[in-house]
């Protein structure tokens, strides 16, 4: 009897550690790819969770199981609610602190409350949970009975390129004022973060990869794929600008995030996906930095911040168009 109880407890615990599944009712226009993106799971994971499901003919009204990704907010309605729907802003509150308190991201809060900046006022009412429509979730418990329906937070925005590395970008606490986001090209037709990391270490850079981000061109990494460098993860200064380049006596590398697009844009054009990725990444970094309470960094390119030294990122990079998008960049320091 005791042994049976022990087995029951052991298998119960194992079952409880499984990821919960969400029961979703298919609506018109839904695709497995779209559902996968919205829930942060792959199409394969959905089809594995639903044996016999035909991805090409989703039937409207059919219930399908969507395996939940680790860390997603799933809570039973019978259990205490994780947070009130609306939170009144008190003295001393910051958006970052509130996001941390309710285990959501600052960008979620900004999206749910349609905030243009992370500035909040005392007495303001903030939505701290996702707005409806909500999904119902059923989760097998240790005893095999189903959990009551739960609310799942939908993805607040669609990031086509940032989503894959969002956790890496969000992981470090921003502890310095990034004043510039500087775009470079690699000057080579191939490459990726690992290759440049090796090269930069060979050249004596103790922090390795000189840039904070690399955006691939489909040769040694994906087209438009963003790779996060160690300098961003550790929030250390870049090595992508000449050390003598200073502003008010401070080396510009200290305050400039470096994004390098793989390619030689004196000869070739950046790919469309690289441009899309850089637009999305710059916007995301802007929001990330402002959410941490710092001023929005200024977008610029290497040849503008250091005009007499370089043509980087090349004549084929759409510098003028991106300045129109993000505002004029920094004039050359020397």
């Amino acid at each position: 009897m005791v042994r049976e109880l022990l087995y029951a407890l052991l298998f119960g615990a194992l079952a409880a550690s499984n990821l919960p599944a969400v029961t979703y009712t298919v609506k018109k226009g839904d695709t497995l790819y779209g559902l996968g993106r919205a829930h942060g799971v792959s199409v394969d994971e959905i089809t594995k969770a639903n044996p016999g499901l035909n991805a090409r003919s989703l039937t409207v009204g059919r219930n399908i199981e969507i395996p939940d990704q680790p860390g997603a907010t799933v809570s039973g309605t019978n259990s205490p609610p994780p947070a009130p729907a609306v939170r009144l802003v008190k003295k001393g509150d910051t958006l970052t602190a509130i996001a941390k308190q309710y285990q959501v991201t600052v960008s979620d809060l900004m999206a749910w409350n349609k905030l243009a900046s992370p500035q909040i006022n005392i007495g303001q009412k903030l939505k701290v949970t996702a707005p409806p429509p909500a999904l119902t979730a059923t989760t097998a418990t240790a005893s095999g009975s189903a959990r009551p329906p739960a609310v799942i937070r939908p993805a607040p925005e669609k990031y086509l390129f940032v989503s894959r590395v969002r956790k890496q970008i969000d992981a470090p606490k921003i502890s310095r004022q990034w004043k510039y986001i500087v775009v470079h090209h690699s000057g080579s037709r191939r490459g990726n973060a690992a290759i440049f990391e090796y090269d930069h270490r060979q050249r004596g850079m103790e922090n390795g990869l000189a840039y904070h981000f690399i955006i691939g061109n489909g040769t040694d990494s994906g087209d438009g794929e963003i790779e996060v460098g160690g300098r961003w993860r550790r929030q250390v200064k870049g090595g992508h600008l000449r050390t003598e380049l200073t502003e008010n006596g401070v080396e510009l590398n200290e305050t400039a995030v470096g994004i390098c697009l793989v390619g030689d844009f004196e000869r070739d054009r950046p790919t469309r996906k690289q441009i899309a990725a850089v637009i999305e990444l710059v916007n995301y970094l802007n929001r990330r930095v402002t959410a941490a309470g710092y001023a929005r960094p200024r977008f610029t390119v290497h040849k503008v911040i250091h005009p007499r030294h370089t043509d980087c990122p090349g004549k084929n990079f759409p510098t003028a168009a991106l300045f129109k998008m993000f505002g004029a960049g920094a004039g050359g320091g020397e």
Partner: protein
Amino acid sequence: MQTGSVQIGWALAVTVALGLLMPWVRFAPASAFDDQSAIVAQLAEDDWLRDYALMNGHDWRALRRNLAAGESGLQVALAGREPESAARALAELLFGGTLVWNKALLVAPLLAAAGAVALMHRKRTRRWLVALAVAQAALYFYLRWQLRAGYVDRLALELNWGVWLMLYGLLLMALLLTARALLPPRVKW
């Protein structure tokens, strides 16, 4: 009495020539850069049909705004080192910063007219039909490729109907010449 293909051929040749003289390009309002999510989505998508055969939403919206304003294709073809102009910006986008090869646009109506003449003498000029079809298709796809590749730069510009008139005139002429070359000479059309 000319056959149908010859009549269509001359109509297309006139279309291409008119297209070159009609408004091609003007500067876009700054608001063209506002919807960055839409720009990212557009750039991330590989829609070959829309990029090489149809028109994207940005171009449709530009057409709806003003059909009369803009600098002509002739100005794009002859753009040089004059102060900032939309024609020069488009010429650089399509043919590079040296502003030499933009003169190639002047060849387009000549190619189209040559195609119409070749259609009139199709029994003797079958090879010419094919050669002219290839040349016009090549010019069409080159221009579409450059418009696609320079999408972000192009947001600063609004293309007007002259450019589309010329492009689709070239494409249809290439198709017509190909069809005529493939049909047996005895078929009267």
